């Protein structure tokens, strides 16, 4: 009896398929084999894992309320200022990094700045900025601003490179200056997406602000770090829940605003 077999779309060649599977399994064997696990320690940890889960289900908002409030406030203020300043600075960098409207030297400078900003994780930048500017929210603000410039600058440049040329030509034909062209022909085309991306970045900045506190750059991360170090899993659970709720609220809000804009 003949049975039907569905065709393989991805790797039609049978030998290649076999080879890929063999390579994959060989890697798994070697990779998992080289993971050293202290099973005794992990087993002891199960207890703490259960405690954390319990803490997550019954979070304790009250006993560290002051620290949590201060941390969240610092995170939120850091997020607002760094997003606003980051957007303002990313505009010139984004326009400068768009090939179709910028002179070559400006283009190269802006592109390399954006590439540099994007290739470094926030936390490594934060380590250096804390070393330079001292502990606290100011170093965190600078870190997030720097990261925002790279993120939005790149996306804005790509957006400008992908615009409809006809409108640019129409505005140029009226004898408009470079600034007028950017304002009248390019800005209306990229603005809706830029607004959406800005809110998305706000969201990312808030999430990141919870992390860079671990290396001393202010925000809720420091509070969370202390709570976990003291094995206060119920306070840690409360902080994590607050972060989740704020991120969800941001996402909901940005979805609503994006709908309103378009």
């Amino acid at each position: 009896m003949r049975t039907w077999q569905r065709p393989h779309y991805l790797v039609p060649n049978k030998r290649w398929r076999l080879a890929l599977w063999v390579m994959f399994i060989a890697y798994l064997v070697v990779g998992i084999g080289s993971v050293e696990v202290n099973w005794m320690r992990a087993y002891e940890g199960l207890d703490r894992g259960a405690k954390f889960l319990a803490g997550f289900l019954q979070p304790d908002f009250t006993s560290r309320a002051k620290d949590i409030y201060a941390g969240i406030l610092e995170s939120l203020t850091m997020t607002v200022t760094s997003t606003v300043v980051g957007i303002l600075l990313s505009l010139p960098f984004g326009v400068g990094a768009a090939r179709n409207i910028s002179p070559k030297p400006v283009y190269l400078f802006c592109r390399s700045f954006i590439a540099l900003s994007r290739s470094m994780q926030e936390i490594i930048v934060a380590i250096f900025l804390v070393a330079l500017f001292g502990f606290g929210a100011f170093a965190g603000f600078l870190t997030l601003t720097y990261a925002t410039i790279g993120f939005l600058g790149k996306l804005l440049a790509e957006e400008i490179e992908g615009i409809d040329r006809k409108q640019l030509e129409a505005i140029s034909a009226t004898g408009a200056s470079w600034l007028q062209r950017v304002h009248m022909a390019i800005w209306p085309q990229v603005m809706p997406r830029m607004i959406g991306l800005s809110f998305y970045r706000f969201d990312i900045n808030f999430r990141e602000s919870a992390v860079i506190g671990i290396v001393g750059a202010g925000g809720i991360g420091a509070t969370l770090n202390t709570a976990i170090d003291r094995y206060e899993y119920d306070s840690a659970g409360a902080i994590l829940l607050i972060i989740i709720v704020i991120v969800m609220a941001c996402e909901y809000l940005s979805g609503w605003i994006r709908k309103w804009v378009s």
Partner: protein
Amino acid sequence: MGQLDQSTLWHSNNRRHARIIWGFWFITVLLTVYCWQVMNEETMWVFVYDAPEQGADLLSRMFPPNWLYINQLYEALWDTLNIATLGTLLGVILAFPVAFLAARNTTPSTKFVRPVALFIIAASRSINSLIWALLLVSILGPGILAGIIAIGLRSIGFVAKLLYESIEETNGTSVEAIESTGASRFQVINYAIIPQILPAFLSIAIFRWDINIRESTILGLVGAGGIGLFLSSSLNTLAWPQVTLIILVILATVVVSEYFSAKVRSLLI
């Protein structure tokens, strides 16, 4: 409508619209200034002002990089690769069922199961892998295992979100065609939906792997293994030439993995 004499300037928005936009800007400026005040209450401006000197001092300490130190990093790099790859695998395996439970067209119940799946996705997405690692190191003890699980937990949300969106975009006619043969629910998913989402699924997984390589390089800062452990110990001993080398190695790793993932994804789509 304004009068159309020569002096009227052209403007694109109607009045109400303009007022809303003006109000938005006003509130934004107000909020930013207020946040700036609150944020900088405890800022020590003395430290900020001498930052250029500190920066020059730091740079002079950081260069030249300690090139020989690379011999101690190979094993850590292998660990980092393992954390990222095995973590991605774990995340993908866990994300697969979550995505099917979250997609409107495959979930068993929109009232009960879907919100739970969406909450899992939101929770996993809003918490950075470094925070997961911090927690897991405290629970399981320091080591690669904590890193793998942290990366896995963070990846669930990302992969499941993109995957359930692509499940919702699948073509309904092939589902109907398979259903009309009397296929069971699983057979419908297996024969009508999986072939449609497979390329997207693999491309999402590889994209996440690329991000995970980037994230796993720093997990060591909280004790979860990999090259970050060496970064952390070099920072703690103020061995700046070693720090420079580690950062260069991390940059190189990130660039290579990004190139590799872009290449494979362009083959898939």
